[in-house]
């Protein structure tokens, strides 16, 4: 083993061993139950006698709650309880909150004193059925005193704005400006400064299954058991337990398969808290399943909502020198994850380019909207879009080819530390770009673009973007915003237990890990099969609940596969060590003379003298006395795999340390046509090449690329949670919140490049978010390329027909 010589860097790994299962596009092991309609989602687990909860949502964006009258609802047929926000505040403590100052922007499962957005819960009814619960909701009378609302983040930060949280005395929940490198010098030496103002509106994951939980409370032991499709972070379980006012060892959150998440079920504890509160109050098993209106208006998982003012310092030859980013992010009424989304941005703020310095000023605005949570990309996709917009604008202003500008500035040596302190472990950006241009048939489309414009007056655009895909976060990105507390470096672990039964069958136990539509079972099965030479279909995978679980953080930030790979490798290593000793003992040979070969341990170079894993396992399970005193019965092991590469930020925060080290890369090349009469954008072609290190299941990754791109198409063209000036939510159903159908998503031509990470098992990097991290930038670039002859640039997403026509009109082109 060698080391990189960088402080805190793990040993560089040797990836030369041949792999049998990692890299194969096997069928997913999860599939059969879902195909048979036996997925076991949360709504499928309602048993006879389970009560149903339904939440009364506020129709006001901002109002004081003067009075709630519940007697009539309580008398309604089948109703067991009605809990108002005031009562809920007594039954439960505030929700878990990673925000800057939770005591002054306090978030509860139901609004207690005033509502802060349309859709916020004010009361919950528990009844024999959802029908009866909803009947009773209509009988609750709430007297509100409406207050002026603010929905524009810049207005929210201005003097005289209505205050979302009076205790905060401002709507600015966080503000800080960071300098990484010598920004002033780089700007002074630049030939040109390219400026722009960019606006990214909010969209969200909107999985087809909403969030839900089924809770039971056992008064005899004072314990909760809650099944839910959100996460059950064992590492942060104490926070949810505190909300429910029980010790963490009295709360078992059991993960069930989720019908999609895309980040939006990350730490989505509110339904679990509401169900738990209702279960304790009624003494019954209670289900709270959000309906679609809840999930759109009250999910706590809207995506980024940003206004950027950016300056990019350039040399005339196309060299990028420095960038000043001033961003306001509209967090809505609460700020549960703090500004962690900007940590994501800072992990790859300079993209794949050798930009020497960065100024990053971030202001978090609170407004009368549902709060932000997580959505595939977690804010880094917005940075990708902003940066690629700036690169294209710079190329246009300097009269340079946008592809050539990108190529000129590519980082080419790895590991590479960017100005913020994060590291890019490996990459080959030129190869990704070349492959994408080839798959896109770039030359052909450039010729077609010219021909169609000249001969038919059609506006075709080709977008080329090259951007980063960070993976495997370390939780330092949630606290390095503050000088205090100076926490030590955060490990953000993931754990796996492997148990080999007496027949050699292997069960893998995952902690805090949910099935979200990603493929943790397939990943683990392939990794275990790689270690033990068994069939992945013979591996059994169990999702362990939170109580008595091992430390784990679960999916998020494209970390699952890498972290599970490390945990599987560690646990397998322990099992093999014991199996080696056992086999050596049985064969009466020195353990050092044994080698693992094709599913067992053999005497080095002698396949005739071998014990299979099953032969070893049966002896260890049933015949312990055949072994030395110190060898226990059984064959199992656990590995708590800590984040393999994360380092401390500097005290002055001029260097944030390494916190997102396994950095993939992609190039997307969409070809679009913009109809200048209607403002409609259609795809003519779409090529995407991703490099997220060694692939475990290429087909599965391709599925994530297409699916993520489809969501990126939604973000770029269709999806927006629209709040009007008064704070009303205008897109409160799928009639108005437009998710792309098969007709809006083109067939993608996908390519893979594999630059293994030097630091991870098999060289794997995370890849689950890549499609959505690239597509909005790429489609915006394509639309702008199409409209360049008309002098039009779109700087606001989504690029709805209205916005495109408005831009055309503003440029004096009839739309």
């Amino acid at each position, binding site marked *: 083993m060698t080391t990189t010589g960088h402080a805190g860097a793990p040993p560089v790994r040797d990836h030369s061993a041949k792999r049998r299962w990692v890299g194969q596009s096997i069928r997913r092991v999860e599939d059969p139950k879902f195909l048979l309609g036996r997925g076991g989602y949360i709504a499928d687990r309602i048993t006879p006698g389970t009560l149903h909860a339904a939440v009364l949502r506020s129709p006001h964006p901002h109002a004081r709650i003067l009075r709630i009258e519940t007697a009539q609802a309580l008398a309604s047929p089948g109703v067991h309880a009605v809990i108002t926000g005031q009562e809920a505040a007594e039954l439960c403590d505030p929700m878990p909150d990673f925000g800057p100052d939770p005591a002054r922007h306090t978030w509860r499962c139901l609004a207690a004193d005033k509502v802060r957005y349309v859709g916020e819960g004010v009361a919950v009814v528990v009844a024999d059925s959802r029908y009866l619960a909803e009947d009773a909701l209509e009988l609750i009378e709430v007297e509100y005193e409406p207050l002026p609302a603010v929905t524009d983040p810049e207005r929210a930060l201005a003097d005289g704005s209505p205050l979302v949280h009076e205790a905060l005395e401002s709507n600015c929940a966080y503000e800080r400006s960071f300098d990484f490198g010598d920004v002033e010098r780089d700007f002074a030496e630049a030939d040109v400064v390219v400026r722009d103002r960019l606006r990214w509106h909010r969209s969200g994951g909107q999985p*087809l299954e909403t969030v839900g939980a089924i809770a039971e409370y056992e008064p005899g032991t004072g314990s909760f058991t809650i099944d839910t499709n959100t996460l059950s972070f064992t590492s942060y379980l104490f926070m949810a337990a505190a909300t429910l006012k029980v010790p963490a060892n009295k709360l078992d959150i059991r993960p069930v398969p989720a019908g999609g998440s895309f980040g939006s079920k990350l730490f989505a504890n509110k339904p679990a808290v509401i169900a738990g509160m209702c279960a304790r109050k009624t003494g019954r098993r209670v289900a709270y399943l959000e309906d679609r209106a809840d999930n759109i208006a009250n999910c706590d998982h809207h995506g980024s909502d940003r206004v950027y003012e950016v300056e990019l310092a350039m040399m005339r030859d196309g060299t990028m020198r420095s960038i000043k980013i001033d961003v306001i992010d509209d967090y809505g009424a609460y700020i549960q994850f703090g500004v962690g989304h900007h940590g994501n941005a800072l992990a790859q703020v300079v993209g794949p380019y050798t930009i020497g310095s960065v100024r990053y000023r971030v202001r978090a605005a609170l407004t009368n909207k549902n709060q932000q949570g997580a959505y595939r990309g977690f804010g880094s996709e917005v940075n990708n879009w902003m940066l690629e917009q700036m690169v294209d604008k710079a190329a246009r202003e300097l009269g340079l080819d946008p592809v050539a500008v990108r190529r000129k500035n590519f980082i080419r040596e790895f590991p590479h530390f960017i100005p913020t302190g994060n590291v890019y472990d490996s990459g080959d950006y030129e190869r990704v770009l070349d492959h994408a241009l080839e798959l896109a048939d770039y030359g052909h489309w450039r010729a077609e673009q010219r021909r169609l414009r000249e001969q038919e007056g059609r506006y075709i655009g080709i977008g080329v973007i090259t951007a980063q895909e960070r993976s495997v976060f370390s939780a330092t990105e949630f606290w390095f915003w503050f000088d205090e507390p100076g926490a030590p470096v955060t490990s953000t672990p993931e754990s796996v237990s492997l148990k080999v039964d007496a027949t050699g069958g292997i069960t893998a136990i995952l902690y805090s890990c949910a099935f979200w539509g990603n493929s943790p079972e397939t990943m683990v099965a392939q990794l275990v099969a790689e270690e033990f030479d068994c069939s992945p279909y013979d591996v059994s995978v169990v999702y362990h609940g939170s109580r008595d679980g091992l430390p784990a953080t679960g999916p998020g930030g494209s970390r699952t596969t890498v972290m599970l790979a490390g945990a599987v490798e560690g646990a397998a290593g322990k099992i093999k060590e014991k199996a080696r000793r056992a086999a050596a003992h049985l064969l009466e040979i020195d353990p050092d003379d044994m080698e693992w070969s094709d599913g067992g341990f053999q005497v080095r170079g002698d396949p005739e003298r071998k014990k299979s894993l099953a032969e070893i396992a049966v002896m260890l399970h049933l015949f312990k006395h055949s072994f030395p005193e110190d060898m226990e019965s059984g064959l199992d092991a656990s590995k708590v795999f800590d984040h393999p590469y994360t380092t401390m930020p500097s005290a002055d925060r001029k260097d944030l340390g390494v916190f997102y080290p396994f950095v993939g890369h992609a190039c997307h090349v969409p070809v679009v046509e913009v109809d200048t009469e209607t403002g409609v954008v259609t795809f003519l072609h779409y090529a995407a090449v991703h490099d997220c290190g060694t692939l475990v299941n290429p087909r599965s990754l391709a599925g994530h690329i297409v699916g993520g791109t*489809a969501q990126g198409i939604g973000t770029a063209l269709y999806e927006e949670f629209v709040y009007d000036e008064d704070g009303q939510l205008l897109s409160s159903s799928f009639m108005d919140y437009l998710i792309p159908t098969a007709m809006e998503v083109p067939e993608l031509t996908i390519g893979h490049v594999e630059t293994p990470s030097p630091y991870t098992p098999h060289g794997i990097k995370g890849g689950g978010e890549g499609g959505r991290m690239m597509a909005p930038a790429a489609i915006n670039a394509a639309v702008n390329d199409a409209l360049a002859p008309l002098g039009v640039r779109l700087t606001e997403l989504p690029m709805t027909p209205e916005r495109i026509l408005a831009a055309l009109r503003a440029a004096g082109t009839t739309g």
Partner: protein
Amino acid sequence: MAPTTCTIRLTVNGQPHVAKVEPRRLLVDFLREDLGLVGTHIGCEHGVCGTCTVLLNGASIRSCITLAVQADGADISTVEGLARGGELHPLQDEFSAKQGLQCGYCTPGMLMRACEILAENPDPTPEQVRSAIASNLCRCTGYQFIIEAVISAAARMRAPAATEEVVS
């Protein structure tokens, strides 16, 4: 006061049922809660996403905006009726082979819609499948592998004899 109920008679996956339901009871709730057929899922609850698609007399409907009483006398097919004798239906098998599912939540509705598409046209082009499945939202896959799966399944369903030969 006990709510008014109506008696309905219908067949679900070939099995006859007689049941008393409230007039307002949704077909999807009747299937899931009264019959325990939880393979039909609820997505948007207003007839847009197609997650709750089942076949009523062979035609796809949205069971989240259909009342159970409207299914009186009908023949309903749900995902639970697709696999026969422990064998996956070719559509189910091809969804797996092509990874035409990720979270699996839209899959039962998508499978039922695909059954209808192939009943109407056993040999569709990929573009025809794309257009036809635009009735159903999938948030995971971007549809591409679903279309591939439907095309492969169509080929197998057109030539069952040939498939059997391959299998044997």
